[in-house]
């Protein structure tokens, strides 16, 4: 490099230096536009706000059909400076549903291999749909009922090896059922009685004992391969009337296959729920499995079918449009039955449709499904969270 006086503008170095000195006279701090400020605020404050400890906004849904819920809560994941977490919240909806819940979660074995959950919940769902029980229920019999219940319980979940987990628990339930509050739909008592809707006349307290086996080897959490299989047995013990004790067994099998670098995913789900009631006992309608709604038979209204036994088969083909957005084609079929031996593939209700899934590897954030092909008309579901 040739030597040259950098102070002189007759040199390359000098001209550059002169330009820099000129700029030096007009320095200003970097400015952020409104979009940059907004996105930074969301990234640094908004997203953590959803999961942060302390007071938080409870947003989402209370139960299927409740509508959008809002409320407030308080939580900490380091209760008494341990890994134990507590979570207290209360929320309500525009449809006058409300719920309040307290939960204490505490690992009781190293590395969280066994976790103990203790919880209490009070909820009031004033407009639950009911169309009758069994496969022949009619849409014309649409009614609503109110269920007010308190549940307290404790569960233990233990990771055995790899994806295998087992657990069990016991809880105390105090359901109270009455006429629904929806002014547009008749209350349950106008159409049904205790014979056609067992348990409508009076509701005992229950002690529920449960045990489950769970194998979850989905990868990733918003699965593109692997499977999730769960079997759960519950015994509901009528504590007051000795009329409504029963056993219920649920088997939920979900399998994920993918091709084309996991950008095309095929999902199959089979859900079977069956129950056993001793000869002098009856299963109350409000504890029966149901089909219909955004996560089962999507071409039918929520809780369209109820019965002591249920079968649901679902298939979904998901294809990635862009990172974070999948489209899906789906087909649902299922039925409820009054007798276990009728739980076959005959007379299945069915629907089909398409949808979109906004997702991350860890799960679906928002799902939009349009369902057709059922005898219940077309249905559009916009749901925060996934399906299966």
């Amino acid at each position, binding site marked *: 490099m040739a030597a040259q006086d950098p102070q002189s503008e007759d040199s390359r170095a000098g001209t550059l230096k002169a330009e820099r000195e000129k700029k030096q006279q007009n*320095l200003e701090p970097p*400015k952020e536009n409104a979009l940059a400020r907004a996105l930074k605020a969301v*990234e640094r404050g908004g997203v953590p706000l959803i999961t942060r400890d302390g007071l938080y906004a409870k947003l989402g849904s209370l139960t299927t059909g409740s509508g959008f819920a809002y409320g407030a809560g308080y939580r*900490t994941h380091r209760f008494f400076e341990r890994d134990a977490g507590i979570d207290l919240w209360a929320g309500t909806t525009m449809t006058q549903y409300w719920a309040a819940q307290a939960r204490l979660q505490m690992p009781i074995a190293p590395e969280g291999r066994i976790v103990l959950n203790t919880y209490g919940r009070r909820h009031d769902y004033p407009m639950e749909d009911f169309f009758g029980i069994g496969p022949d229920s009619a849409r014309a019999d649409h009614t609503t009922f109110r269920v007010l219940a308190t549940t307290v319980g404790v569960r233990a979940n233990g990771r055995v090896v790899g994806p295998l987990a087992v657990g069990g628990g016991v809880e105390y339930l105090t359901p109270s059922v009455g006429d629904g509050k929806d002014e547009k739909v008749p209350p349950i008592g106008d159409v049904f009685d205790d014979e056609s809707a067992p348990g409508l006349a009076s509701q005992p307290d229950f002690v529920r004992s449960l045990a489950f086996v769970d194998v979850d080897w989905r990868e990733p959490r918003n699965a593109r391969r692997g499977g999730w299989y769960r079997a759960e047995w519950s015994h509901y013990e009528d504590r007051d009337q000795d009329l409504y004790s029963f056993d219920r067994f649920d088997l939920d099998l979900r399998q994920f296959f993918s091709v084309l670098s996991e950008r095309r995913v095929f999902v199959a789900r089979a859900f079977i729920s069956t129950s056993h009631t001793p000869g002098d006992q009856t299963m109350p309608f409000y504890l029966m499995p149901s089909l219909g709604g955004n996560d089962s038979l999507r071409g039918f209204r929520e809780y369209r079918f109820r019965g002591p036994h249920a079968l649901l088969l679902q298939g979904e083909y998901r294809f990635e449009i862009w990172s974070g957005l999948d489209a899906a084609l789906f087909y649902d079929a299922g039925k409820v039955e009054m007798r276990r031996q009728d739980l076959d593939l005959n007379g299945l209700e069915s629907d089909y449709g398409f949808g979109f899934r906004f997702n991350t590897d860890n799960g679906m954030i928002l799902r939009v499904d349009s369902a057709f092909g059922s005898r219940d008309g077309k249905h559009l579901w916009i749901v925060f969270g996934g399906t299966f």
Partner: protein
Amino acid sequence: MASISGLSLAARSSRWSAGAIVVMAILAAAGELVRVASPHFYADDPLWADDDMALDASGATPIEDANSYDFVVHTFAAPGDRRDVRAMNVNTLDEVPDSSWFQNRADRDRTVADLVRGPDRVSSISLDGWVISGGKSTGVQPGFRMTDPQGQLYQIELDPPDNPEMASGAEIIGTALYHAFGYHVVDVYLAELDPSHLVISEQATIWDPREARRRRLTRREIDKVLRRGARQPNGKYRVIVSRFAEGKPLGNFRYYGTRPDDPNDIVPHEHRRELRGARVFAAWLNHDDSRGINSLDMLTADGGRNYIKHYMFDFGSTLGSGTIYVQRHRPGNEYILEWKPGWLTLATLGFYTRPWLHIDYPDDAPPAVGRIEATAFTPEQWKPEYPNPAFDNMRPDDAFWAARIVSTLDAASIRAIVEKARYSDPRATKYMTDILMKRREKVLRTWLTAVNPVVDFALSNSGEFTFANAAQQAGVAGPAQGYILQWSRFDNATGAATKVGDPTETVEMSSAAPAALVADARAGDYVEVAVAARHPEHAAWTTPVTVHFRRGADRWDLVGVRRVP
């Protein structure tokens, strides 16, 4: 570097509106006028060191772009000055001078050992006596901070459990290569962490986003971090140890505009050759994460001066690594958001399949190398995660500059750098070396041949003009059928070239300059020679490269090379 004089007048604003571009065009025109009044070559040309560290930048404040903003603005807003113009910080030899951004390392007498050492100050590091001094608050890779006995701060990061050695290997190789290219990078080392000998400082804290506060860092948190990392059979952890750069952090640089608070920063970043040409390096190494938020500006105090030094960092998502998982299929092949393939996929219910979905990655690749291949790799089609203004502005002459640097790294160098990653499986070393060599060959074949590749010009006192062919040297093109030379007398004051004689053609890469032009030349005289080439496979070679020599006291000095795409 006349282009700097002309265009950087407009570089003061980082806000690129249409109005600003119009103003810039006017100023650029004004710059041309100024240039006419200035000599074409200054006496200190070619400038090999751009002293962009001279003026005090201590008043600069941090720029810390959010991930989401960086994605949104580059995907939807196309920031920066998108024009097909020559890079504005090249010297008159079409090269990049040393600066706070870049240091020429390719042409020095470096050894393989130099390349392997890269930015590292020491050959190895032991974590004995080190103290955990804080949590790691940014990035997806599990880790924490440690302080050595001298008080120097380092970042410690682990590999994902399913792919031991993958991210750390990518970090080591990427850092060494980016240093070899000429960028400023921080020291990174491999070390072994023994979880039974960890000491946590009493003052160590970690930012807890759920509690929205810093709190004491405990062994429980460290154990959680370690559970997310790959543990070796001996119970220890292989970790990446990254030394914090000296100075005061000023956030990231952007691949467009200039820092309005840095007096030294006068060339729009999208017109800096080393940032444009970084696309070539990124393609070679599959550095899909090459974006502003993976850069670092440090206010550096040196010799009484305070200037901003620009670093590239975080090479964990290069090669076959996606940092915490094996690299996905899309990165490198498609932006996160590209409209057309998405709409096609939707319209055909997924029956349209993107080409990259059919890339066949070897099933037997060792886990440590992740997912990378060379067969389907097409350099000119490679893409980062989302548009990068400097990459988008890359022209064939920028790419040629970068490809020449790549060409200086031979098989032995590359293998030595890969060996620095200390893969425990020899197959991983071989696989990665082979892949890098195959991708290198494609990079060179693509970008060394896209412009007229004549280089290394010299004019002897006897008037013999010699040069070389970079593509031929690299083995990616056969000899040209001939080279056409047009000599001129060059008036440095006006920039006018007066032809001397008719064009001559030579098959050899040497020729005698016209005696009338060089025999009686006096000190300060200039000659120009335009060199075109004929090659049946490379039509672009017919565009001549214009070369200028200046007569010194006792020799001809090469002062100008202009390679027009």
